[in-house]
């Protein structure tokens, strides 16, 4: 299993994976590694199972090695410092996924719950709008690239 890993702030654990992962297992290990935290807030993003007329058959994320992981690490370091976290876990998939597959796991461990909730949301809003991933979907056997959503930029403006 190939794991691309970088770590600057020792409280931030950031991973970019090109193989499937199991969020409950990662979360359990993260929680047990941070006994000093009063709370852990987590978010899992997954490929939607689409029941519409033209369901998405597969989703692919592409990354660019020299930029993607370093930028994720910078975001994690910023998040840890801004919310005084005990620990932050960011696991993000790249490559081809099918409906039901986890895409991203963010977990924030803090002394108190407010920082944990806010940090997880802050990290997700920035990951969604600013991280170096390009997405395409396969519908009816045809791949097409997905353009950015305005909503993602709006989500970001809440933090400035």
């Amino acid at each position: 299993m190939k794991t691309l890993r970088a770590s600057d702030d020792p409280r931030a654990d950031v991973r970019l994976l090109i193989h499937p992962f199991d969020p409950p297992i990662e979360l359990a290990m993260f929680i047990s590694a941070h006994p000093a935290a009063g709370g852990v807030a987590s978010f899992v993003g997954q490929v939607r199972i689409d029941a519409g007329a033209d369901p998405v058959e597969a989703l692919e994320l592409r990354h660019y090695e020299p930029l993607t992981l370093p930028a994720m690490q910078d975001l994690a370091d910023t998040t840890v410092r801004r919310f005084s976290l005990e620990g932050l876990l960011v696991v993000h998939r790249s490559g081809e996924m099918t409906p039901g597959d986890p895409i991203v796991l963010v977990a924030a461990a803090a002394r108190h719950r407010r920082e944990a909730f806010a940090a997880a949301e802050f990290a997700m809003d920035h990951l969604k709008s600013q991280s170096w991933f390009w997405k395409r979907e396969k519908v009816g056997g045809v791949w097409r690239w997905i353009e950015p959503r305005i909503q993602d930029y709006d989500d970001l403006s809440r933090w400035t």
Partner: protein
Amino acid sequence: MSLKLVFLGRLEDAAGLPEREVEAVASVSAVLAGLDPELAAALRADKVKLAVNGMLFHDLDAPVLKDGDELAFLPPVSGG
């Protein structure tokens, strides 16, 4: 003597492949002049960013290129 061009996201479709090598030239304009005009226009589009060896440039004319450089053309990201 060559440069490596990397096309991310939808630019891969415009280029017909994810990456290619071109002969080394000193400027990005010279690189673009050697490409298919339609592809060059797509790479010059407003929201496309350029990274040379992993360093971002907002001005396409800024970097001075040398043999072995990797140029990545980055359209707007579409989120995880």
